[in-house]
């Protein structure tokens, strides 16, 4: 078994208190849980994602339709709300998860990680590389996981401070609003460009791909649909007997209203996804690792790193869907290729494993998780900063355990 460095990067790192046998057993238990769910996948799961996609597309079509009449305030409000919701679903529960390959088992070329593209600025191939490969493999390893602070934020006190971090509170808000563009640029991996590891040709090709994607997004949201609304508004005004000038003015109003609606929908989606994603790895509860700590790590240790490097957000079913089930970030990091709709179902089993091996299970309400993230971002804009207190081992409440036991002992229905 590989030896861990003498002193842990995070003092309370539970990896240091687990022996090789325990790690091996943990690896086997999580593997078994993964295989158990994958053996069950079938029609019902396929129906879930198809219904979700169908609902989302109908919502887009309806919202775009309503926004044709964006000059009228109620239509504008309804369309903007619908489009915002549709964009959130498209990015979180659908796009992110399909591009993870969670639905590849269906073998459906139209819901497949290799063919999917999403409604944001980031081209699919670029994101899949930086996210599925770099982030999910090297999760929370300082220097390897480019999602630790996204190369612009200081989120860990041990990252060396420099004066540029003073701007962190402002860049934070800027990134929140323009998150999709931040993600697109982040995929370029500036560090690799600076160090010359990435060839100029590769950088140029990636930039071109972003350009193509960005052009399509801008054309659609900020030119084509406002144009259609403008034409509709002018047409309605003309039909009502307005003269030419009044009709043109109405058209201009309609186009402007839709342009604003589209921009708001994009920003709402940006802020929402930023909030959910920042709560995944930056709350106080999560652990960070060094390259030495993960060199040649065993499968069991890989699972433990994923488990303690992520944090959940507690909430109701609708909240989980809107967050793309990334509110089950822990389960997602253990099993990135598992259909998101199954995370909620396996969460009690994951907790039970945590309880038995004395591991933390990171979770909290949205306000608490996001609050600690924002506190960290503000505090670490300044030099210094100390480690935050880490949670101890998860202890399963007796009533939850009773519920789990009951499920396990349930006599299956006949026939």
């Amino acid at each position, binding site marked *: 078994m590989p030896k861990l460095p003498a002193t842990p990067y995070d003092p309370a790192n539970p990896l240091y208190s687990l022996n090789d046998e325990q790690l091996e057993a943990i690896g086997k238990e999580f*593997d078994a849980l*993964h295989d158990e769910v994958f053996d069950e996948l*079938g*029609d*019902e*799961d*396929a*129906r879930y994602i198809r219904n979700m996609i169908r609902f989302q*597309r109908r919502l887009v*079509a309806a919202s*775009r339709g309503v926004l044709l009449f964006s000059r009228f305030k109620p239509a504008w409000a309804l369309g903007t709300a619908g489009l915002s919701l549709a964009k959130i679903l498209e990015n979180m529960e659908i796009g992110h998860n399909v591009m993870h*390959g969670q639905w*590849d*088992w*269906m*073998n*459906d*070329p*139209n819901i*497949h990680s*290799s*063919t999917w*593209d*999403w*409604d944001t600025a980031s*081209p*699919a*191939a*670029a994101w899949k*590389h930086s996210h599925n*490969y770099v982030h*999910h*493999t090297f999760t929370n390893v300082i220097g*390897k996981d480019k999602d630790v602070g996204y190369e612009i934020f200081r989120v860990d006190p041990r990252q060396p401070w420099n004066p540029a971090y003073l701007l962190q509170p402002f860049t934070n808000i800027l990134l929140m609003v323009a998150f999709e563009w931040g993600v697109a640029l982040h995929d370029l*991996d500036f560090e*690799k460009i600076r160090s010359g*590891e990435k*060839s100029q040709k*590769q950088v140029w*090709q*990636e930039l*071109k*791909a972003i350009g*193509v*994607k960005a052009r*399509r*997004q801008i*054309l*659609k949201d900020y030119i*084509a*649909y406002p144009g*259609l609304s403008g034409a509709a508004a002018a047409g309605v005004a003309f039909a009502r007997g307005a003269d030419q000038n009044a009709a043109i003015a109405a058209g201009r109003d309609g186009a402007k209203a839709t342009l604003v609606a589209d921009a708001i929908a994009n920003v709402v989606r940006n802020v929402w996804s930023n909030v959910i994603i920042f709560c995944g790895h930056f709350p106080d509860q999560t652990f960070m690792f060094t390259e030495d700590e*993960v*060199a*040649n*790590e065993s*499968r069991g240790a*890989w699972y433990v790193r994923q488990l303690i490097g992520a944090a959940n957000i507690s909430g109701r079913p609708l909240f989980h869907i809107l967050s793309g089930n990334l509110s089950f970030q822990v389960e997602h990091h253990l099993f*990135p*290729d598992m259909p998101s709709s199954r995370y909620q179902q396996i969460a009690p089993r994951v907790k039970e494993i945590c309880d038995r091996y004395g591991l933390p299970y990171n979770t909290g309400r949205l306000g608490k998780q996001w609050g600690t993230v924002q506190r960290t971002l503000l505090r670490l804009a300044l030099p210094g900063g100390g480690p935050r207190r880490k949670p101890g081992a998860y202890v399963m409440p007796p009533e939850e355990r009773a519920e789990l036991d009951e499920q396990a002992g349930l006599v299956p229905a006949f026939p």
Partner: protein
Amino acid sequence: MPWMRSPVFDSSDTGYEVQDARLRPWRSVLVETGAVPSVSWVRRQVTQLGRVLTSPLLPDDYFALIKPHWSTRELTGRVVRVQPENGRATTVVIKPNFAWPAHKPGQYLRIGMEINGIRHWRAYSITSDPDHPDGLVSITVKHAEGGRMSPVFNQQVGPGRVVFLGDIEGEFTLPQPLPKKALFISAGSGITPIFSMLRELDRQDAIDDAVHIHSSRTADDMIFGEQLRNLAERRPGYVLKEIHTAEDGRFTPDALDRMCDDWRDRTTFLSGPRELIDAIEDLYEAEGCADHLHTERFQPVIGIGGGGNDGGTVHFRVSGCHAECGPGTSILVGGEEAGANLQFGCRMGICHTCVGRLEDGAVRDLRTGAIEKASGQMIRICINAPEGHVEVDL
């Protein structure tokens, strides 16, 4: 587990492959897709223009919300009816959602169907006429015990079931000009492509001198038995010689002289189980008339490559798995034995489900024996064996 990548810190990760936006980004070699339907010029323009409003999706995806078969993303079909045939087979009649491209009698179709949420693909000979007046297509499927798709086609599929239609493939067709003297040899479900060919000859009024030797277990078990007996009655130029293996025993090549003494002068079409094909092929080669022989072989012959063919080792770069393949063992089989979780479909080189990038080394095509050196190309791991050490991105 394919996603379970062990961190390799010394690997130089220089990025990913940037996709060419002009290509059809919604088609990928990693997942099998139906054929591209042929649509009108107007429809293509609508798609091109409409993309401005629907990007990154296609207008098709919104049309499909109204009627799924309006989508032009891939060719699909709807089962119109199923006809039970003799010999535990079923003819599945399908109406494609867009115009059916012409096929040649004897060719096969890759057909996909969803079973419990998972789309599966298989290849079956097309049994319908090439230019059916109603644009219908059919395949005839024999129930294979323990199979995944054939029992569904035989027992569960009914009118309305959606299927996915892949490309039409196969070199087993009638040559032009049509042969004057022909011999057809078939056994079991191998009759399906030959049935298509015979119907074509019948329709073209070109059955002048054809002998057909077919083996089935009993007379009642013969797929298309009635139709072919009927044909033999109508067409004096078509002679059907049935062998019923339950009574007569298996057909062997030495019976050929007795059943059709001028077989050496006939263009021969052969379709059936592998043992039969091997035996007949050997005979034709020994007699120096292999160029008369056309064969449909649904299963590749593994390990006839000749030359080195010593097998080798495989490193699956994504899963980190190491495998050893003995002589004639495909990368897929070797990988599975070593515990790698690999995607596969047909396991005979036609569906491309198992493709992976060959990063280093050389592979031998187990069907042809041809050796290919790595140039970053995609290979089908079910029909390729390593020649020495290879590195595959799977």
